[in-house]
C-alpha cells in the first residue's frame, strides 16, 4: 500500500510542484487554444511569452527571502 501511495505521489509530482503554478499554466494553454483558433500563428508568440513569463514570475516568488520553495 505504501508502495502504491508513493507511486501515485510520484506520478502527480511529475507534473505538479505548486498547484497554483500548474493551474496558471493550464489557463495559459486554454487561452492559447482559444487564441490560436481565432488568430492563428500570431497567437503563438503571446502563448510562448506568457509561458516564459510565468516561469520568471514563479521563480521570483519562490526566490523571495522567507519563501519556502516547493
Amino acid at each position, binding site marked *: 500500500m505504501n508502495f502504491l501511495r508513493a507511486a501515485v505521489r510520484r506520478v502527480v509530482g511529475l507534473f505538479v510542484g*505548486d498547484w497554483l503554478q500548474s493551474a496558471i499554466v493550464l489557463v495559459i494553454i486554454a487561452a492559447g487554444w482559444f487564441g490560436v483558433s481565432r488568430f492563428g*500563428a500570431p497567437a*503563438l508568440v503571446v502563448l510562448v511569452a506568457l*509561458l*516564459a513569463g510565468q*516561469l520568471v514570475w514563479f521563480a521570483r516568488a519562490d*526566490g523571495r527571502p522567507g519563501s519556502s520553495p516547493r
Partner: protein
Amino acid sequence: MGQQLFIFGAAFLGSTVESIEALTIVLAVGLTRGWREPLLGTGAALVLLAALVLAFGQLIVTTIPDSVLKLVVGTLLLLFGLRWLHVAVLRSAGVLAMHDEEHAYSHAVSQLGEATSRRDWVGFVLALKGVFLEGLEVVFIVIAVGGTGHGFPAAIVGGILAAIVVAATGLVVRRPLARVPENTLKYGVGVILTSLGTFWAAEGMGASWPLDFVSIIGLVVVYFAASRVAIALIRRPALA
C-alpha cells in the same frame, strides 16, 4: 532525421538523470547488504517499467487521435519540463541546495543495516521501489517524447542506452556518480522538454509553427533566456 535525433537526445539525457539517481539507491543497498537481492529487485523494477512503456505506449499511439495526443501529452510534457526547469532555476540561483549524489548515498546508507537473514527482502524491496519510482519519470519521458513525435524507437533506444551507460559506469567505479553534472543536465533537459511540450501542445491546438520542427530551437532560446532572467533576479550566495 533531425527530429529523430532530437527525440533520441531528449530521451537519453532525461533518462540519464533519473538513472543516476536510481543507481545511487542500488549502490547504497548493494554495498551495504549484499548484491543478490538488490539486483533481483532492480531486474523486477526494469521488467515492470518495460511493461508500462509497451502497454501505455502502444495504447496511446494506436487509440488516441493525433491532435488530442499532441495537446494532452504536449501539455503534460510542458508541466513536467517546467517543473524541472523551475527547480533548476532555484538551484542555479542558490535558493535550493544542489542535488548531491554523495549526500543522497550517505543518507541512504545511514538508514540501512546489514542483512541478517539469507533471503534479504529488505534489500529486494528497497531496490525495486527505488528503481521503479525513479524509472517512472523515464517511462513518462520515453512515452511522451517518442509517442507524440512518432519516434518511439528513437526514444526507447535513448532511454535504454542511458540506463546501460549509467549502470556500466556504476559497475566500474562502484560509487555514486557524483561528478556527473546532474544539475546542469536537469537544467538542459528541463529547457528541451518545456520547448517540446510547447511545440506539441500548440500543434494539438491546430497551430502550424513557422519552419516546423526547427522552431523548437527558437523555443529553447526563449525558455533559456527566461530562466537566465529569473536566475539573475533571485540570485543568492550559493548553498552547499
